[in-house]
């Protein structure tokens, strides 16, 4: 009966706190929506390549035309024409295009000679090194192809009796690479979409923000004497902790349902990809419950360490940003240096994200998410024990 009363009270308080509801539900929903849509091209599942380049063909030879066609066939970058009256270099400097490729006059004629002319590739100031390298690789491949073709033509001319079947089939090179993503959705192999990556990431971020309303309420209870009154009524600390834990875990799980709904229904409505929930609902429930337990226990610990609502908000914000940065929410872990990847392995958000990605991307079941679930549960229990200890010590103050 006591626990029911505590849970009911906490639920009513939260439902009447519009700031907390906005923070817990509206903020992450908008975040997921925005991040899924703005990063859609980064995952390029729609083939709507956003990297553009100018090609200044000062040679206008068969070789330069072939180079342009080979680049266009690669498809990752889009060739655009400079508008009349614009200066290509200026457009590049302003990041209106990402690259400017200049093929010098005489390029084709000198291609197989002793002194070949180099094409000039310029990248805009805002181009990421990884994208720069990618375009460089595309250009390298295209150049290698036309250079080989031109060399073979020269060789054939010098050796009239050469068997034509000995000429290499350049298209065969493409057949030497079999590209395959292990991500499957709806029974078919696909490239993971931005929504698939962003929903679990920002959902986790939002779930850990439960510490703000929880600790603010707890601080208010302490400051207003309500906590003293509750204890003077003989309410044991475990009831107080449990009375907070249960409703906030439910709120956390509601966040999960809402954010997944945004990914499944709202993002596609606005032109994004649809979130695929994987093939194991038990695994999804397991990860969601473990993250929820961990985040609420962590919130209980913060609530028992801070002494004001301002402290709770600032500490939670800073700690969440740090955990998110380390946990692969903001930067994928594989992009981190080795040392940071090792450190990242200790962030509860990493465990949660790995768990969700196991379900959403790797299409795993409950057994596969067990390690992450156990880590999250252990972290939660450790936080709960520390919160109980902080309560006990706080009693003496």
């Amino acid at each position, binding site marked *: 009966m*006591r626990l029911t009363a505590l849970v009911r*009270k906490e639920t*009513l308080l939260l439902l009447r706190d519009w700031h907390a509801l906005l923070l817990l539900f509206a903020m992450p929903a908008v975040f997921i929506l925005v991040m899924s849509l703005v990063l859609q091209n980064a995952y390029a599942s729609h083939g709507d390549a956003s990297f553009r380049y100018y090609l200044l063909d000062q040679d206008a030879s068969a070789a330069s035309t072939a180079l342009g066609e080979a680049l266009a066939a690669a498809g990752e970058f889009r060739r655009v024409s400079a508008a009349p009256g614009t200066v290509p270099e200026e457009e590049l400097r302003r990041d209106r295009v990402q690259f400017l490729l200049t093929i010098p006059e005489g390029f084709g004629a000198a291609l197989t000679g002793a002194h070949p002319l180099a094409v000039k590739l310029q990248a805009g100031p805002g181009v990421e090194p990884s994208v720069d390298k990618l375009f460089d690789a595309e250009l390298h491949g295209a150049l290698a192809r036309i250079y080989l073709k031109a060399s073979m033509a020269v060789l054939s001319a010098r050796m009239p009796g050469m068997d034509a079947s000995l000429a290499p089939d350049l298209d065969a090179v493409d057949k030497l690479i079999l590209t395959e993503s292990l991500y499957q959705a709806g029974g078919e192999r696909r490239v993971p979409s931005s929504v698939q990556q962003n929903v679990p990431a920002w959902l986790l971020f939002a779930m850990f923000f439960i510490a703000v309303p929880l600790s603010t309420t707890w601080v208010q209870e302490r400051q*207003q004497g*309500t906590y*003293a009154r509750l204890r003077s*009524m*003989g309410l044991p600390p475990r009831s107080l902790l449990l009375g907070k834990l249960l409703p906030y875990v439910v709120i956390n799980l509601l966040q999960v349902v809402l954010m997944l709904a945004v990914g499944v229904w709202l993002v596609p409505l606005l032109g994004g990809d649809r979130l695929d929930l994987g093939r194991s609902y038990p695994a999804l429930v397991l990860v969601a419950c473990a993250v929820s337990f961990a985040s609420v226990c962590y919130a209980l610990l913060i609530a028992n360490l801070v002494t004001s609502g301002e402290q709770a908000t600032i500490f939670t914000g800073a700690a969440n940003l740090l955990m998110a940065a380390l946990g692969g929410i903001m930067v994928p872990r594989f992009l981190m240096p080795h040392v940071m990847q090792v450190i990242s392995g200790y962030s509860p958000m990493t465990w949660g994200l790995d768990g969700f990605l196991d379900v959403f991307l790797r299409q795993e079941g409950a057994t596969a998410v067990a390690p992450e679930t156990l880590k999250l549960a252990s972290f939660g229990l450790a936080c709960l024990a520390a919160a109980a200890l902080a309560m006990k010590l706080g*009693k*003496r103050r």
Partner: protein
Amino acid sequence: MIQIEGLSYRYPGAERAAIQGLSLQLRQGSLFGLLGPNGSGKTTLISILTGLLQPSTGSVAIDGKLLPAGLSESQRLSALVPQEYAFYPRLTVMENLGFFAALLAAPDGPVRIAEALSVTGLEAFASSRAEHLSGGLKRRLNLAIGLLNRPRLLFLDEPTVGMDPQSRRFILDTIKRINRAGTTVLYTSHYMEEVEDLCDEIGVLDEGRLLARGSLADLLGERGGRRLVVTLRDTPSSDQSRALDAIPGHAVAGSELTVEDCGERELQRVIDLLASQGLGVSRVRYGHGNLEELFLHLTGRQLRD
């Protein structure tokens, strides 16, 4: 009802003990007023009595049961009304009462809620959010929650702070009624006139020590009851001042003559001397006229925070 013997408590890291060797007894049915400046140890004492703090040394027994062994029993028969608004502003009056009543797990919860609403006159505000209540109504809700377990012992920690005179009078009358119905009340306040009006026994606490205790009449009559303050019509001349030197323990400040520890015989001598010196008297005060004077006399006039 309460027996305290040699009680001491020091907060971790504090320079001095908040309660120092305090002994005090409260009889059943009394309405005991505990006075003290800020930081004197009133709230600490209540926190120990309600089990929120564990004393460093000494013993506390409530209704014959020693704490902490008898804590759960004493918590069942007592209630604390903290000086803060110890309820949930976003809940209505009824939701607040319902929540605290549910924690008591009493089978007649609705009856107790109705009683608490009636005693504190909050029936008309049952569905109002606590955050929208006036200061006086909030104080009444704070008290109403404390009445839900029908306490035999009620700890009221400055329950009338920031109230208008009408609301304060209502609360004081309510406390009197509760006390007359048999509830022992330990009442702390800064308002001397409240304590004078309400309490049948008074204790003055300062720096964790009990400086005085007794009924109002006892305290005003005995403790410092031998102080004489005479306001003269004119400032005494040098000859008159020399004549007044014959009074032991006297001091003259302007036209005010003060004699500490002035017995009844000395009182007559002083009056005779003033008459013989032709010094007219405009006002005479003998003993402590009110509790505030006694309080300031015992605790001093320096600021505490």
